[in-house]
C-alpha cells in the first residue's frame, strides 16, 4: 500500500514554519499557536504510526516511499522506518511538542525562533526516516543551521562561542562523513543504505571499484570509511574525548533547546552508528569492537567523574549525558541481543530523562536566574510539587530499579557481559564504577538543590506552574511506565534489533 505518512510527519513542521513566517510579527500568541499546532500534528501522526501503521512483527523497512530525486548522481527520495527509528521518530515529535510551550518563557523568542525550531524538527525527523545516504546527509546538515542560530541568538552570555563551537565540531564530523559517503557511493554505485548493507553482507563493499583500491593515506578503504563515519557520529553522541562542545552548547542554550539537544540530537549520533555506519562496514566493526566498547566505557566513567565535579546544575546534566550515552556504544559493541536492545532502549530513555532534567533546571533558572548548585538548598520546602516531579527524573537518570533508566542500563551491562569477547567483562566492571558515581552525583545534586536549610531569599519561590507541569508530565510518565513495561518500546524494535545483530555478527 502506498502511504505518505512518513513524508507528512517529516514535512508538516515545514508547512508550520512557512505559516509562522507568514504571520504578522506582533501577533505573538498566533505564532505560538501555529507552532504548537505544527508540532502537535506530527506527534499525532507519529502516534498513529507507532500504534497503527507500523507492524511490530517485521524486521524490514516499512512505509517505504521511494522516488527519483537527482538523477545525475542517482540520489533518491527514499524513506522508510523500522523498529530502530520508530521509537526515535515518536520521541522527536513528542519532545518538539513539549519544547514549544517550554519556549514561551524564552526572552525575545518570536517568529524567527519558532520558524527555526520547526525547521530543526524537519531535519531531525528527516534523518531518522532517510534510507538514502545522500538524503540522510542533506537532512543531517539541515539541522545544523537552526541549532546554530537557536543557541547563538537566544542563548546565555557565552552563546556566540558555544554556537560556533557546536557548529565547527559537527561540521568537522560531517565533512569526514561526506568524504566517506562519496567513497561508498563510488564503490557501490548507490546511495541506498539497505543496498549498501546488503553489499557489505555479501562482502562486496571493499573499495575495489575505486582507483587504487580506495586506499587513502595508507589506510584501507574499509578502515578509513569506518573511522570517518564513526567520528562524524561519535561527535554527535558525544563520545569522550570528542565531547567538549556539549557542555558549552548545553549551558548556553535556552532550556527548550537543551531539551532537544540532549533528548534527540545526541540520539542521532547513536542512531547513525546503528543505521549507517556499523552495518555498512561490519567487518571493520568486528575488528574494532573492543576499542569501541572501551571508548564507551571510558565515556561512562569519564563523564560521571567530571559531572561529580560540577557546580553548575546544567553542566552537571550535560556531563551526565556523556556518561549515559556511553552505554549506547558499549552495548552495541558487545554484539549481543541484550546489549543492542539495551543500547537502543537507552537512547529512548535518556531522551526522556535528560529532557526532563533540563526542563527541571529551566524551571528553577527562570525563577532565580542562576544555576549554582551550592547556592540552592531546601527548595523542596517551598516547591513540593516541583520536588516530587524532579525526584522521578533524577531516579530514572541515576538508574534506580523501577524507573526506565535502570532497565536499559542493566540490559546493556548484561549484554556486554555476555559478549563472546572476554575482555568485555572488564569493561562492564569499569562501567559499573561509572554507575555508582552516577548515583553519587545525581543524589548529591538533588540534596544540594532540594534538601537542607532553606535560604530565606528563596522563601517566596513559586511552585511549578501548569505550563511547566504540562511540559514535564509526559516525560516523567514515560520514565515510570517504561521502567515497569519496557516492552512497550522493546517489542516493536525487537525484530529489527535481531536483524541488526545478525548483520553485525556477519551470520546470515
Amino acid at each position: 500500500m502506498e502511504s505518505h505518512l512518513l513524508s507528512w510527519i517529516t514535512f508538516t513542521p515545514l508547512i508550520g514554519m512557512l505559516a509562522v513566517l507568514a504571520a504578522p510579527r506582533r501577533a505573538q500568541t498566533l505564532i505560538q499557536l501555529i507552532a504548537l499546532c505544527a508540532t502537535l500534528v506530527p506527534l499525532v501522526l507519529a502516534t498513529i504510526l507507532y500504534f497503527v501503521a507500523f507492524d511490530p512483527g517485521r524486521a524490514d523497512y516499512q512505509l517505504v516511499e521511494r522516488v527519483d530525486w537527482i538523477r545525475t548522481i542517482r540520489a533518491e527520495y527514499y524513506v522508510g522506518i523500522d523498529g530502530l527509528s520508530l521509537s526515535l521518530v515518536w520521541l522527536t515529535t513528542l519532545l518538539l511538542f513539549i519544547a514549544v510551550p517550554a519556549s514561551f518563557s524564552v526572552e525575545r523568542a518570536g517568529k524567527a525562533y519558532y520558524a527555526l525550531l520547526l525547521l530543526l524538527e524537519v531535519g531531525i525527523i528527516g534523518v531518522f526516516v532517510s534510507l538514502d545516504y545522500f538524503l540522510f546527509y542533506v537532512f543531517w546538515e539541515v539541522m545544523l543551521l537552526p541549532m546554530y542560530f537557536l543557541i547563538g541568538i537566544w542563548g546565555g552570555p557565552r552563546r556566540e562561542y558555544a554556537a560556533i563551537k557546536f557548529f565547527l565540531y559537527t561540521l568537522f564530523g560531517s565533512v569526514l562523513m561526506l568524504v566517506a559517503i562519496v567513497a561508498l557511493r563510488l564503490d557501490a554505485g548507490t546511495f541506498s543504505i539497505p543496498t549498501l548493507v546488503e553489499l557489505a553482507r555479501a562482502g562486496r563493499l571493499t573499495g575495489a571499484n575505486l582507483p587504487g583500491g580506495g586506499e587513502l593515506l595508507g589506510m584501507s578503504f574499509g578502515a578509513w570509511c569506518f573511522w570517518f563515519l564513526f567520528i562524524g557520529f561519535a561527535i554527535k553522541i558525544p563520545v569522550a574525548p570528542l565531547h567538549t562542545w556539549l557542555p558549552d552548547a548545553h549551558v548556553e542554550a535556552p532550556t527548550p533547546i537543551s531539551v532537544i539537544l540532549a533528548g534527540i540530537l545526541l540520539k542521532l549520533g547513536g542512531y547513525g552508528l546503528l543505521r549507517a555506519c556499523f552495518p555498512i562496514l561490519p567487518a571493520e566493526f568486528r575488528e574494532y569492537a573492543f576499542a569501541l566498547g572501551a571508548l564507551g566505557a571510558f565515556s561512562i566513567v569519564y563523564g560521571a567523574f567530571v559531572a561529580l565535579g560540577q557546580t553548575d546544575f546544567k553542566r552537571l546534566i550535560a556531563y551526565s549525558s556523556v556518561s549515559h550515552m556511553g552505554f549506547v556504544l558499549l552495548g552495541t559493541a558487545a554484539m549481543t541481543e541484550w546489549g543492542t536492545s539495551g543500547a537502543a532502549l537507552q537512547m529512548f530513555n535518556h531522551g526522556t530523562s535528560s529532557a526532563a532534567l533540563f526542563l527541571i533546571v529551566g524551571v528553577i533558572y527562570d525563577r532565580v536566574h542562576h544555576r549554582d548548585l551550592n547556592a540552592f538548598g531546601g527548595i523542596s520546602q517551598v516547591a513540593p510539587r516541583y520536588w516530587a516531579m524532579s525526584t522521578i527524573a533524577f531516579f530514572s537518570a541515576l538508574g534506580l530499579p523501577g524507573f526506565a533508566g535502570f532497565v536499559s542500563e542493566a540490559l546493556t551491562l548484561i549484554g556486554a557481559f555476555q559478549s563472546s569477547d572476554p575482555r568485555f567483562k572488564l569493561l562492564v566492571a569499569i562501567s559499573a564504577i561509572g554507575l555508582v558515581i552516577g548515583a553519587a552525583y545525581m543524589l548529591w545534586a538533588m540534596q544540594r538543590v532540594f534538601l537542607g536549610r532553606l535560604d530565606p531569599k528563596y522563601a517566596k519561590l513559586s511552585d511549578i506552574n501548569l505550563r511547566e507541569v504540562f511540559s514535564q508530565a509526559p516525560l516523567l510518565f514515560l520514565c515510570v511506565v517504561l521502567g515497569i513495561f519496557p516492552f512497550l518500546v522493546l517489542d516493536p524494535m525487537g525484530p529489527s534489533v535481531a536483524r541488526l545483530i545478525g548483520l553485525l555478527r556477519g551470520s546470515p
Partner: protein
Amino acid sequence: MNQAYFEGLRAVGPECVLTLAAFVVLVADLFFGARGARHAGWVAIAGLVATAAAILGGAQDAGVTVFAMVEVDGFARFFKLLMTAGTAAVVLLWMFDARRRRALPGEAFFLLLGALLGGFVIVGTNNALLFVLGFELLSLASYALAGFDKQRPASGEAAIKYIVFGSFATALMIYGISLLYGLTGTLDFTRMAAGDPGSGAPGLIAQLAQGDLPVALALILVLAGFAYKISLAPLHFWAPDVYEGSPTPVTTFLAVVSKVAGFGALLRFLAGLFVNDATAAAMTAYGTRFAMLLAILAAVTMTLGNLAALRQSGLKRLLAYSSIAHAGYAMIGVACLTETGFSSALVYVAVYALMNAGAFAVLIYYEGITGSDKIEQLRGLGWKTPWVGVAMAVLLVSLIGLPPTIGFYGKYRLFVEGWNADLGWLVLVAAINTLISLFYYFRVVKALFLAQPASIEVSRARVVATLAVGAALGTLVFGLWTRPLDQWVSSGLDLLRRG
C-alpha cells in the same frame, strides 16, 4: 563565398549584437550626458538581453567552426550565457548602488560590454591568436574599470596593480603560446598535440618522445596566464588588493564574469590538448602528470585563500579571498582532465557565479547602508533587513557548501569526480578547507544576527536587494532541484564529444 560568409556572420550573431550594443551604449551615454547615465545603463541591459536572445536563438548552429577561428558550440554557449547574465547583474548593481547612484559613469557600461566581448572570444576559440586578442580585450577593459572610483586613491592603486600584474602574466602567457607555436607549427590548440601535417612540424607528442622540457615550459607559461585570470596561487596576489580597491560592482564583475571566462578558456585549452579523442595515448599519459600539477595548484590555492580569509575584517576582502579559495575548489574538476571531471567543473563554475553574484549584491546593499565594508559594521543588521540578511545567510551556507543549497551539490560533484580521478587526497584537503571556511563565513552571519541591532537608517535599495534575494532563492531551489543545471551543463559538454 558570400553565402558562407553570411552564414558565419549569423553564427557569431551574439558577438555582433554585443559589439553593436557596446557602441550604442557609448553613443547613448554621450547623448544622455552625465545626468542621464542611468538611461545608458538601461540601454546596456537591453543590449545584454538581445545578446542572450541571440545566443539562445542560435541554438541550431551547434558545433560549427566559423572563419576557421570561432567555435560556436554548446560549451561556448554555456559560458556566454553565464557571463551575459553575470554582466547584466553587474550593470544593475552599478545602476542601483546607493553609493554610486549620484555619479553614474555611463562609459563604464561600454567598458563592461567590451570586457564581456573579450570573454565571449576566449571561451569560443581554439585559435591562439584570437585567444590572445580576446584575453587582452577582457584584461584592458578590466584595468580601466578597476580605477573607476576616481575620487578614491585605492581605486587608482588597484588599477595600477592590476595593469602591472596583468601585463606580466599576459606576457608570460604569450611567450608560452609562442613556444607552443614554435613546437607545433599550428595556432590551433586542438591540433597542437598531433602536430600540423601542412607545416611539417612534429607536434607535442613527437616532442614529448624527445624530451618533455620544452613542452613543460610552454605549458606552464600558458598556465601562468590562466592562473592569473582565475586567481590561482601563486598568481593570485593581485586579486585581494584589486578586488578591495575597485568599485564594488567592478569587483563583482572580476569575481564572477572575468573568472568564469578564464575557466571557460582554460577548460577549452586543456580539452584541446589532453581530453579530446584526437589526442593520442602519449598525450593522455603526459596529461596525467600535468593533472598532478593542476591538483597541487588547486590544493595550494584553496588552502591559501581560506587561511588568508580567516583574518579579514572587511567583507569585500573576505569575499576576495573566498573567491580565490573557490577557484581552488573548481580546479578539482579541471585537474581530473576527464569528461565527467569537466562536467563537475562546469557545474561548479555556474554555482560559483550565482553564489558570488548574490554575495556581492548583499555587500553592495550593506555598503549603501553603513558606508563601509567592515564586518563589525554589520552588527545586528540582519534583524533590520531580514530579507537581505537571511539571503546572505543562505548564500554563505551555500558558499560553505552545506545542503540543501546548490553549493553543496557543486561541491559534492567535485568530490565525486576527484575521487574517480584518483585524487582522494585532494578531496580530503578540500573537505578540511570547507571546515576552515565555515569559520570566516560565519563571522558574517554572527555579525548580522547574533548582535542587537544598532540604530542605523536602513535605505531601500530595492533592486540590489531583489538581486540578492533572488540569488539566495536560486541557490536553494536549484540545490534541491538540480535537473535544469545538469541539463544545461550536459549541453555544454559537446566540446569533449567532438572528435
